[in-house]
């Protein structure tokens, strides 16, 4: 089990960090957010040039042929920089298409995904429940899909959707292109670096994703999504801890740095422990995805449960460590808090995710 990064992965991490660092600090993020744009197009272009959309695409399909370990590196960096890109939704959809075994679909879409010309995202959630409804109300009939999906992550600018739908009483995944019969409504989100849409389908042409075992594919999709979101949350969490620790060193009160007070020091020490625990669990999930598919479903779900448990706490602790300036608009703390609060809910509440993990554990 590769719980430590390889040389190649460390190099890749440096390259990603360079791109994000040169994309500018959170001032740039704020500009994109204020403009109401779903993504930072300039940054996304740079990431496309680095090959990011192709990480999960095989070399046969013109991708980088890497795995979730490398995708996780990108997702962590995006979380640390609060960067608005469509990579979360895209990564999930890409992994699912690659896993499905639908060769024709893979041949058609994966090369386009890899070169950055096609954005596909999953459209699973309905209403206000978790992201995988027990019985999807969106239905397919005669090759066309109808119904409404809610909270479609990165759905605003998507050219295609992987839609979870029911056809004749049986569930399946469908590839649906944006266009006639597909109405995308941008949602406002608390974290404006997380873009989401509700998508209404009205007899839109739907192509069934061929797969040998749908249940297994859906479980895989859930695990991939969980890992993607966990990695993104971890990036933000680790960064908030870093900012808080630095402030605890720099800020003096009562003639000494506030970090010398146990009341400040101990909670940060606990978060440092959570950081190590979370990173260990996350690495296990990404490694399992790439090397140990049997364990991946549980490992992915475990990673998300762990990060849901600490992400908001980390952001809140940052605000609390900062005191007054922690809730001013000009400090980044509230951006991290909003990101953590939003991203930890996109696949369902902690209780919903916990129940899903219990099911995966056979409880």
């Amino acid at each position, binding site marked *: 089990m590769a719980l430590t990064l390889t040389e190649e992965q460390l190099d890749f991490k440096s390259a990603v960090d360079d791109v994000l660092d040169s994309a500018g600090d959170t001032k740039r993020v704020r500009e994109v957010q204020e403009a109401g744009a779903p993504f930072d197009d300039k940054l996304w272009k740079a990431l496309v040039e680095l090959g990011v959309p192709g990480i999960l695409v095989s070399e046969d399909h013109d991708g980088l042929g890497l795995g979730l370990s490398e995708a996780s590196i990108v997702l962590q960096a995006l979380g640390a920089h609060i960067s608005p890109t469509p990579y979360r939704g895209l990564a999930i959809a890409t992994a699912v298409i690659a896993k499905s075994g639908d060769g024709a679909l893979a041949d058609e879409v994966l090369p386009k995904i890899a070169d950055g010309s096609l954005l596909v995202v999953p459209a699973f959630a309905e209403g206000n429940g978790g992201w995988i409804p027990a019985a999807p109300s969106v239905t397919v009939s005669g090759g066309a899909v109808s119904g409404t999906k809610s*909270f479609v992550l990165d759905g605003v600018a998507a050219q295609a959707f992987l839609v979870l739908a029911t056809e004749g009483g049986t569930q399946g995944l469908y590839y649906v292109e944006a266009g006639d019969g597909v109405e995308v409504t941008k949602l406002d989100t608390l974290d404006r670096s997380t873009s989401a849409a509700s998508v209404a389908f009205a007899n839109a042409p739907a192509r069934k994703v061929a797969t040998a075992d749908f249940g297994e594919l859906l479980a895989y999709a859930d695990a991939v999504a969980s890992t993607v979101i966990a990695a993104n949350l971890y990036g933000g969490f680790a960064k908030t801890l870093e900012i808080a620790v630095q402030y605890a060193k720099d800020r003096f009160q009562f003639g000494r740095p506030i970090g010398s007070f146990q009341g400040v020091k101990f909670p940060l020490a606990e978060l440092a422990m959570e950081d190590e625990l979370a990173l260990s669990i996350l690495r296990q999930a990404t490694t399992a995805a790439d090397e140990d598919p049997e364990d991946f479903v549980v490992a992915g779900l475990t990673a998300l449960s762990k990060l849901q448990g600490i992400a908001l706490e980390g952001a809140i602790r940052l605000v609390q460590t900062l005191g007054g300036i922690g809730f001013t608009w000009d400090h980044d703390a509230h951006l991290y808090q909003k990101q953590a609060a*939003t991203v930890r809910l996109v696949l369902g509440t*902690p209780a919903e995710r916990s129940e899903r993990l219990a099911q995966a554990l056979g409880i």
Partner: protein
Amino acid sequence: MTITAEAESDTSAAGFEARARAWLEANVERAGAVRRTRGEELVAYERALQAKIFDAGFAALTQPEEYGGQGLGEPERQAWERAAADFAVPRMTYSVSHGMCGPIINLLGTEEQKAKYLPRLWRGDDLWCQLFSEPSAGSDVAGLRTKAEKVDGGWRITGSKVWTTSAQYCERGVIVARTDWDVPKHQGLTMFLIDMKAEGVQVNPLRVATGEKPFNLIFFDNVFVPEEDRLSELGKGWDAAVAMLRFERISIGTGSTRSEGPYAFDNVLAAAKKLGRTDEPGVRAALAELYVLEQGTSLLSLRMRAEAAAGIALNARGSIAKLAGAQANRRTAELVSEILGTALVSWSGFTPEGDGLYPGITAMFAGSASSWTAGGTMEVQKGIIGERVLGLEKDPQVDRGIPFTQIRQGA
């Protein structure tokens, strides 16, 4: 400007209450009858109303008559409170002016200061603010760095103050500044009365996480304060500040066991029902916990009020109420996440000002951090509780007895 209450036959508190109620019926709207936006409009409305109340002899009831008060006693004050509870009398606008600034001037002021400032203060002609907190000195208020330099006929004040509510509307303020840098930090401070419209005062609204601007960051650039506006003795500013903070009554609840506002149990339950989530075990557990949380803080307030009424001193236990409020708010952020799910963090077709139930919850969620530090960080409250309620020893104070200029400070 002093107005005397009408001489009527019934001089008892009950008689006073009846007169107050009659006057209120005739002159003031019922509480909750009209919803006012915050800010300038509210301030203007409450200023006008305060003057009217003052002129009718129902303001500054227990204050001495020579400075605009009515010279009455506690029974009358309580009678007014009872009568006014149902009416939209000014509450927020004058909480600092009347709750802290008036009393400290009364306590420390010269005859001239009292005569000059108090009548206008009680009538609400002048709105006052409290200027203690600084960007560099948050929890460590006595570490403040705003300086007052002696000049001919008075002082020149330079520095910055922060977290000042409604400073943009204030005519005057009570400020603490450092007048001696070569003595230990508590000993070099002096309290002044300052003209907020004077040259060199710059009030900057401070934008917070919700996008609103409820506080101000204020710069003082060489602002002149005449010697006659020095309130405390030289070097006694800390004692004055402590005395002034003691006047700040802990807000110990509304008397209801049910809270109001976006985070109130009833409101969150309504939102959960609207979303159709009340059958989910996680949501049910979170709602039950929210109820227990709310009952705790509400009943603690009620109990503290009951004890206060029974003559049991609250003292530092007020910090317990503050900490409980802050922690309940912090925990509620997690509970509403569990209860509302993505509906908490995304929306469509309505705005935070709209009629939906959860946009209010979302705004509260986004802005909740400010409530954790109101009146001191949670760490400050825990220190007070540990030391002054439980009697545990203080942390070692490394800056004690050291000249201010020699105290270690950050970059």
